[in-house]
């Protein structure tokens, strides 16, 4: 199919060819090389094949998600294509490695290569410039963060590379993986709770207090109220949601009715929540003695637990929290709410420009209150995977501080339902992987440094890249429309047309605060 210039090849055939190419090359090379090296070569070749066939692949006037025609632009060649290649290879590697945990190596490698080749086709044809920019930003931020962490290690007299290697090795052990998934289940809920607020430019710092109070009261309900299975779990979850919502609702109400900054009020409410939990968690109130050194709410009877999911597919005999499904549901619900519902539209509109939302008939106060309420309701869920899946009671040693981790993860995941998934997995990985370091005499805090650095770099790099991307997009559109000499639009009075010589005072300029709602 290389000889005739104008022949077209249907997309399914190209996909098939790419997959065959990637899979076969990998299988053959697997005999001589390490599986991952074989996979990289295989997927890369598949990508090249897709690229070569691209001119012959019929495509409906390929347009990026941002609406600009991208093919052939320097950005596309320099950034989008390499990003597509990198992402396909990484996707293939991750898939291969995951499958390797439960399948034999050649099969896993081949399957990984097939997935990578599929990705190669999809990404080559569909990766939009703005998406590629985002990935590039995150990648850059990751590299910077690793660099900074390495520098810290180096100057503390610790060899960086062996340390990273050790973390990677420990962090990818089956049992670690289960722990990572479980941790990220919790982190994810916290981050979504924060993200709902962020979308409205509301800073719910109170997720921490909301989930602790919710978990305590939910645990007490579950422990004291013996209900039939299913109903019990349902009531416990409902309690947590209600308490979380109520606690955040106070901050929402104060903001709407009294103009109290939600930052201040949620910080205060965190302190109050700590006080209330301490007050309630004493013997004679809600707590009973759990063990010699620990008191907590009475354990929830087994019928009220949420069973775990065996993690044999990861090669571990531990269990993944059953409530991971709740996290998934919350993530999907968040996405649907944001992108498909009127409420979500009004939420985003208010977050982007409060003035425009108001002028369009959005009841901004109601939106502020409701989004605070929803944020709190999701925050109420944060403690539940731990409560119903593992400890079954709320005791003194119940994990704290997840609300603050949620803020970092929401920032890292750019408030995007999928972005937050990766951010929480990554965060949990770093925490888990650092667990091995004390055994080597390396301070575990290295993970905290890495986490903090990456949040900072992602926020900064992403913002820079995003702005640049926006300018670039405007430029592309300007070029397409042949607009040459119009400078940035100023909303101001047009010329008076020259006929009103006597009317000196006829106009005054508009405000230049045209991006009022955009304060970052």
């Amino acid at each position, binding site marked *: 199919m290389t000889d005739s210039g104008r022949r077209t090849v249907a997309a399914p055939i190209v996909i098939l060819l790419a997959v065959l190419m990637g899979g076969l090359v990998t299988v053959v090379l697997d005999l001589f090389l390490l599986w991952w090296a074989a996979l990289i070569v295989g997927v890369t070749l598949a990508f090249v094949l897709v690229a070569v066939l691209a001119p012959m692949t019929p495509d409906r006037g390929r*347009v990026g998600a941002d609406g600009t025609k991208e093919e052939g632009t320097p950005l596309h060649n320099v950034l989008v294509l390499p990003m597509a290649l990198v992402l396909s290879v990484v996707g293939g590697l991750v898939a291969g490695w995951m499958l390797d945990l439960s399948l034999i190596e050649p099969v896993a490698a081949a399957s990984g290569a097939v997935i990578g080749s599929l990705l190669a086709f999809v990404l080559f044809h569909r990766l939009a410039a703005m998406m590629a920019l985002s990935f590039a930003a995150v990648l850059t931020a990751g590299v910077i963060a690793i660099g900074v962490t390495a520098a810290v290690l180096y100057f503390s007299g610790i060899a960086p590379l062996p340390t990273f290697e050790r973390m990677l090795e420990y962090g990818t052990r089956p049992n670690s993986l289960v722990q990572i998934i479980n941790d990220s289940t919790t982190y994810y809920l916290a981050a979504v709770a924060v993200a709902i607020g962020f979308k409205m430019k509301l800073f719910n710092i109170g997720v921490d207090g909301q989930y602790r109070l919710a978990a305590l009261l939910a645990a007490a309900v579950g422990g004291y109220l013996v209900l039939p299975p299913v109903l019990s779990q349902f009531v416990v979850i409902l309690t947590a949601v209600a308490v979380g919502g109520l606690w955040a609702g106070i901050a929402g109400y104060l903001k709407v009715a009294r103009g109290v900054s939600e930052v201040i009020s949620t910080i205060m409410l965190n302190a109050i929540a700590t006080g209330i939990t301490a007050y309630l968690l004493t013997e004679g109130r809600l707590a009973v003695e759990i063990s010699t050194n620990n008191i907590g709410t009475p354990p929830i009877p087994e019928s009220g637990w949420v069973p775990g999911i065996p993690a044999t597919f990861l090669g571990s005999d531990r269990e993944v929290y059953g409530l991971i499904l709740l996290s998934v549901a919350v993530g999907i619900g968040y996405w649907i709410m944001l*992108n498909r519902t009127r409420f979500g539209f009004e939420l985003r509109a208010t977050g982007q420009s409060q003035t425009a939302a108001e002028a369009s008939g959005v009841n901004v106060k109601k939106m502020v209150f409701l989004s605070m309420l929803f944020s709190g309701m999701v925050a109420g869920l944060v403690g539940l995977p731990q409560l119903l899946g593992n400890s079954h009671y709320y005791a003194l040693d119940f994990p704290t501080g997840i609300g603050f981790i949620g803020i970092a993860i929401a920032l890292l995941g750019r408030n995007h339902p999928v972005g937050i998934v990766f951010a929480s997995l990554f965060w949990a990985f770093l925490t888990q992987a650092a667990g091995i370091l004390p055994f080597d005499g390396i301070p575990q805090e290295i993970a905290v440094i890495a986490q903090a650095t990456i949040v900072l770099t992602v926020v900064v790099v992403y913002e820079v890249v995003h702005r640049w991307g926006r300018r670039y997009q405007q*430029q592309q559109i300007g070029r397409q429309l042949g607009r040459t000499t119009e400078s940035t639009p*100023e909303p101001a*009075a047009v010329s008076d047309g020259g*006929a009103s010589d006597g009317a000196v005072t006829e106009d005054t300029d508009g405000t230049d605060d*045209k*991006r009022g709602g955009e304060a970052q």
Partner: protein
Amino acid sequence: MSSTPSGGGSNEPAAVELRGITKRFPGVVANHDIDITVAPGTVHAIVGENGAGKSTLMKTLYGMHRPDEGTIHIRGREVRFHSPSDAIKHGIGMVHQHFMLADNLTVLENVVLGAERRHGIGRKARARIQELSAQYGLGVDPDRLMEDLGVGDRQRVEILKVLYRGAQTIILDEPTAVLVPQEVEELFDNLRVLKREGLTVIFISHKLDEVLSVADEITVIRRGTTVATADPRTTSARQLATLMVGGELPVPELRESTVTDKVVLALSGVTVLSSEGRPVVDDVTLDIREGEIVGIAGVEGNGQSELIEAIMGMRRASSGTITLEERDITEWSTLSIREAGVGYIPEDRHRHGILLESPLWENRILGHQTREPSVNGAWINRSGARADSERIVGEYDVRTPNIDVIADALSGGNQQKFIIGREMSGDPRFLVAAHPTRGVDVGAQSAIWEQLREARAAGLAVLLISADLDELIGMSDTLHVILRGRLVAEADPTSVTPEQLGSAMTGAGLDGSDAHTEGDSGAEGAHRNESEGGA
């Protein structure tokens, strides 16, 4: 067409000389091949439409960004500015359109802020300020608190700040935009003193009559480049306007009257109080009929914005009623009012009309988030909204590659056309059009006028608020003048001239022969008479 500078001798080197200045921004060339020579001791005006590149040029001259090509000479020496402080060192000062003053500080503190090294912050600085104030006739008292000063005084403080920093050339960016007529005259007197004292003034404006009255030389900028240099003594405003837009201006005009006697929106005694309890809209009574465009003329800040906000339910009227087709909507929410068939073209589209970072099709939903085809119950109807966005883009000639681009990527005129298309959809009964052609290019302007005419012919009632008097006169069936929140006069758009309207707007009253108090109530006439007597 050059003029002889009235100030310094002609063999002196130019105060400022720009040669071949080109400045590109991503996607646009904001300035190209700009050549300007400003003679010392003159007032040099730079005129051009909004978006023509005046501000970009001045930012280049003030060192806020560097030109991609071209040279700047100050008094014969080539300079390169890396920041405004470089420009200040070379004696260039700039008075921004929006004042940069701290309200809670005194004049003295504001002036020395950031220039403490010159004369300290104490007695020497005060003496210097008094000296400058006397020399240039600015009449500034260094110990007044800034928040006690009026707009004109604040502007003089800004000028003083620039002089205090040793400026020989002062750039004034649209200085009259914030002033009332008397203050404009005072400013011009100040400028004449500055000129007499040997300073050079660069005056940026798009108000031709002002430019003609104060400038010694005028440079016209169009589409980013200098197109002509004119002598104000031999040039008329009409000639300048033609130079500015590069061709004949589109003329706003209505064809035959389509006014019916069916009242769509009726305001009766509407009063809106400011947060301090002062009436900003004062007892406004007004009927707008089907197929009628009612224009409101007024100096900005005389209650127009508040009146619109009261109609749109964004601000509560403290008394009076607003009736839309026999339903009292005074207490309704913005959403209900919009749902009842009221369209709204806001005066500041970036603040009130559009989500800059959202794609066009999502902007189609804005303000229509409860109505077909954008939504389906509680759900966003993506395909409906997208299809209708395509319709708007087609019908209203919005120049965009497609409906997935973010609104910010479009030019102001195209954003405005999209907003108008959106507000016209859903079969509105009544439209609030605030400055519908503000900041849009000439082509978009005539398209927007045509759309308003068509909607009017189809029976839409329109409230038109504009600062463009020609637009008001040409597009209105009925024309009212608003002053300090009151409707003080009603003019006949077929016979009134901009001059008469302008004088009514400032409280001098319409010329009796050309205006008619044809209003239905005597109240309006009374207001008018009152104002004729007063300020």
